[in-house]
């Protein structure tokens, strides 16, 4: 039971627990904050898996950026406290069946596939190799992503602005 396994269990409990809060809490704000911490858990996983740069990116971009944005959104739309129960009992049944089915399916798949994996090597800093990788092999996606982000930003502004003057 090395320290790593311990952290693994800690983070997994954190993710699953807070994931449940996000999913089932009545109050939207609660779920927003819960999501914030779930992201932290995931970042922890990344560290465990040797992706230190990725964890940092996750925390900064995802948790810091996107999650805050979500929180803004929940704040702006005033009906936070409105009871979150689904309007149709049928929907909850459907969701549990779908969710559970997927989970069971995946878990059974994991069980009986033989992964040809190799024992993980030593952890080494990944930042500059990721950087090199990004700018050599993955230059095209890198450029496209930048273009995409620009487009997203512009469209977001347009959407909101159009709303303004109509």
């Amino acid at each position, binding site marked *: 039971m090395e320290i790593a396994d311990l952290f693994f269990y800690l983070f997994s409990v954190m993710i699953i627990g807070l994931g449940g809060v996000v999913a089932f809490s009545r109050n939207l704000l609660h779920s927003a904050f819960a999501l914030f911490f779930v992201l932290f858990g*995931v970042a922890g996983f990344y560290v465990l898996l040797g992706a230190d740069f990725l964890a940092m990116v996750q925390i900064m971009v995802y948790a810091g950026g996107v999650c805050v944005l*979500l929180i803004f959104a929940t704040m702006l739309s005033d009906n936070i406290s409105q009871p979150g129960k689904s309007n149709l009992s049928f929907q909850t049944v459907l969701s549990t069946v779908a*969710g559970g089915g997927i989970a069971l399916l995946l*878990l059974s798949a994991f069980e009986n596939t033989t992964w040809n994996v190799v024992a993980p090597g030593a952890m080494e800093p990944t930042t500059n190799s990721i950087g090199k990788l990004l700018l050599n092999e993955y230059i095209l996606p890198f450029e496209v992503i930048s273009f995409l982000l620009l487009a997203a930003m512009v469209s977001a502004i347009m959407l*909101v602005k159009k709303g303004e003057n109509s």
Partner: protein
Amino acid sequence: MSLESYLSISALLFAMGLIMFISRRNSVAILMAVELIINAAAINFVAFSRFVPSAEARLDGQVFAIFIILLAAAEAVVALAIVLALYKEKKHIQADQLVGLHG
């Protein structure tokens, strides 16, 4: 820890995201559900990149994860912009009433 454990955790997270996605009425909640699902996928990527046998493809998973995060960010931005625009328009963002495209 072994690969399966990471994968199983991400599967659970994925399932929870899915359940939330289907059952919640509030658009913002749905977006959160999407975030969950995306993170589940990212975990898988990183897990595989960690345990993948070939040496030179070691970091590909992580690069993909980065891209996923970026994309998620872009997606969130746009989705929220739409939601807010809708909100301004209809004063509510109940997913099941927003059925403009209804056949």
